[in-house]
């Protein structure tokens, strides 16, 4: 399809586009010239002084001219062609689209290698840690919550509570009792699942909005307990110097240890090894989540979750114990949240209630909704776009040259975040991947249009 898209029906008309662009530029100059070009300021003597800012005006007008030219010359014809080609031609998927999962997986596996070979160990830390690990944590959380929200259709706004349970389980049990990460990883998952069941029992008779409110409250309760139960959790100060993960005690990442990875492999000491190890660890955890979820979808329990999302009354008429089915969804979602939490604690080396505010829950829910409820690939893309996007904002320091030295793109994070959400939901109301993949088929696998799939009512 891409080959056809580049060859529009009525080739780009550069002359008309240039004319249009100049016209747009004149209008932009007329509008922005007076508005931005002049700035009045008081000087030392309280006199108003006019200051000219022609540089910014020129930049803005240039953006308008170039943007209008590109729109007119390339984007509009491409859209027309795409409309003309829509229908039978569009079912013919490109190589990239067909093999998206394989390519994505290969990229994830090779990512640290690529980064290290491009930037060297020391420079790679930021890209592996802030981008790779950070995004993968959210991919895992998104996939965990996807079981609850996407498959079972239960809106859980307090998911971060289970993340917190997992993180504090690891932080407390490892610093007080010195248990290893490999023991505490499953244990934190089990503890989080237990809390999922404890919350689930009274709550799951509620539906829709009411369930959402109670789960939201539960998230806040856990956070407030963490703040106020000072004797155990050390309050808002949090728990620091949480032990690092090691590879089953054979290889460690503390420079002082005799088993330090640098000494074993004869490498110069660097904190990059630990980050790369953590990257592969979270990748493995996320893939484990994906594997289990994909398996579960093909099992009766997974089908029952989806049936529950479609119609709860019909489920009961077919002999499905809806309470237990909801509880398993809740507990399993919580378990993966707990795994992610213990990883988070190990990676940060520090946990405090600050990390488990409602905004985190909202971001995870947003990732699931944005990705397309129930879709694994969609959730991964959404996590990469949202978390990677906000991290990218920190890298845009060149914008300071345009907007002045006080400009901090990071402050616009929530604004851009909100705008992007609205835009995407208008453009793709069912999320990035709006179609549902059936779990079994007789003749051929056809994906189900999102318009037929219910969102669930609790």
């Amino acid at each position, binding site marked *: 399809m891409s080959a056809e898209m580049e060859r529009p029906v009525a080739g780009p008309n550069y002359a008309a586009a240039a004319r249009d662009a100049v016209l747009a530029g004149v209008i932009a100059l007329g509008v922005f010239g007076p508005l931005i070009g002049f700035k009045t300021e008081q000087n030392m003597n309280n006199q108003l002084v006019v200051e000219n800012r022609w540089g910014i005006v020129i930049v803005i007008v240039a953006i308008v001219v170039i943007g209008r030219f590109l729109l007119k010359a390339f984007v509009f014809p491409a859209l027309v062609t795409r409309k003309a080609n829509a229908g039978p031609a569009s079912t013919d998927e490109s190589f990239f689209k067909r093999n998206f999962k394989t390519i994505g997986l290969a990229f994830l596996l090779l990512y640290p290698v690529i980064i290290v070979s491009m930037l060297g160990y020391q420079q790679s830390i930021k890209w592996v840690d802030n981008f790779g690990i950070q995004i993968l944590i959210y991919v895992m959380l998104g996939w965990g919550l996807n079981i609850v929200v996407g498959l079972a259709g239960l809106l859980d706004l307090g998911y971060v509570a289970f993340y917190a349970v997992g993180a504090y389980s690891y932080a407390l049990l490892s610093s007080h009792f010195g248990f290893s990460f490999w023991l505490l990883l499953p244990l934190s998952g089990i503890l989080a699942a237990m809390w999922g069941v404890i919350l689930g029992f009274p709550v799951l008779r509620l539906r829709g909005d009411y369930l959402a409110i109670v789960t939201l409250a539960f998230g806040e309760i856990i956070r407030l307990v963490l703040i106020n139960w000072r004797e155990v959790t050390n309050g808002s100060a949090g728990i620091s110097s949480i032990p690092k993960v090691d590879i089953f005690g054979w290889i460690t990442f503390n420079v002082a240890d005799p088993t330090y990875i640098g000494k074993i492999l004869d490498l110069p000491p660097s904190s990059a090894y630990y980050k790369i190890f953590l990257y592969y660890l979270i990748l493995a955890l996320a893939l484990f989540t994906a594997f*289990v979820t994909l*398996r*579960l979808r093909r*099992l*009766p*329990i997974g*089908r*029952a979750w*989806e*049936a529950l999302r*479609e*119609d709860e*009354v*019909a*489920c*009961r*008429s*077919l*002999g*499905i*114990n*809806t309470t237990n089915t909801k509880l*398993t969804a809740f507990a399993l979602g919580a378990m993966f949240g707990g795994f992610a939490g213990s990883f988070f604690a190990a990676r940060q080396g520090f946990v405090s209630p600050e990390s488990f505010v409602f905004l985190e829950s909202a971001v995870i829910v947003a990732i699931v909704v944005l990705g397309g409820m129930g879709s694994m690939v969609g959730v991964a893309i959404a996590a990469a776009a949202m978390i990677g996007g906000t991290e990218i904002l920190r890298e845009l320091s060149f914008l300071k040259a345009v907007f002045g030295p006080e400009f901090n793109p990071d402050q616009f994070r929530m604004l851009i975040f909100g705008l992007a959400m609205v835009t995407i939901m208008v453009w793709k109301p069912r999320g990035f991947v709006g179609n*549902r993949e*059936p*779990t*079994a*088929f*007789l*003749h*051929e*696998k*056809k994906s*189900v*249009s999102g318009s*037929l*799939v*219910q969102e669930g009512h609790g």
Partner: protein
Amino acid sequence: MAEMIPSWETNPILSVEHVTMRFGGLVAVNDLSFKAGRGDITALIGPNGAGKTTVFNCITGFYKPTQGMLHLRHADGKPFLLERMPDFKISAKAKVARTFQNIRLFSGMTLLENLLVAQHNPLMIASGMTVLGVLGFAGYKKAEKHSIERAEYWLNKIGLYDRADDPAGDLPYGAQRRLEIARAMCTEPELLCLDEPAAGLNPRESGELNELLLGIRRDENTSLLLIEHDMSVVMEISDHVVVLEYGTKISDGKPEAVRNDPRVIAAYLGVDDEEVEQVEQALDVVTEEAQQ
């Protein structure tokens, strides 16, 4: 004939005994008793608002009756008191399946998936309550294959085999009705309760439905209980008719006996013209057939 004790009295699958259902001050069902015979098609008819669906909801556990007893006995003699069981157990243990007046399919799931969800409980056991299934044990694969065969059997029966991989929400109305019946049958019920299965069907589809229901009675060990407004369906296929008006039973017996019951005619004459016409037409049809 008339002196013979009817079969539903001697071998009932379901006995409804003195069931009353009150919603606040409203008495929806008032001291209702009737029996549904094993292997029979029992029809529950009555004007709108007579309490038919309420009786259904009591039988299938969606409502708990205010008073009375619902006694179900399996072919092997196992008794169940339905009013004491939660709704999902009535389907899972007592083997009572139902369909709904407003179709309740899993519209975003394919036909095959709909029929697989109906076999949830046996599959759940086969997957070792999910644990063995996640680990990929072979027993589950075998059970799933068996379930898919069962689904194929029902898809063939309702004539939707070719559409197995389409979403249920894409089906036309009549096919959705048939799929809902097939889904209920996949739970292997002893008693199948159908809430207005012929509503909204054209005459041809209605005929196909009759075939399907008669086929179920003939080939499966399932008794049927149905609510119906379409008198041609009621008179043609049912063995036993129970008539309700204002929550009270006004007539009970073989279709031809009920048809001539003056109280039934009065009840139907008392409601709007359309339904009277339906009754009259149905009566004409049936009498003509009888004369021939």
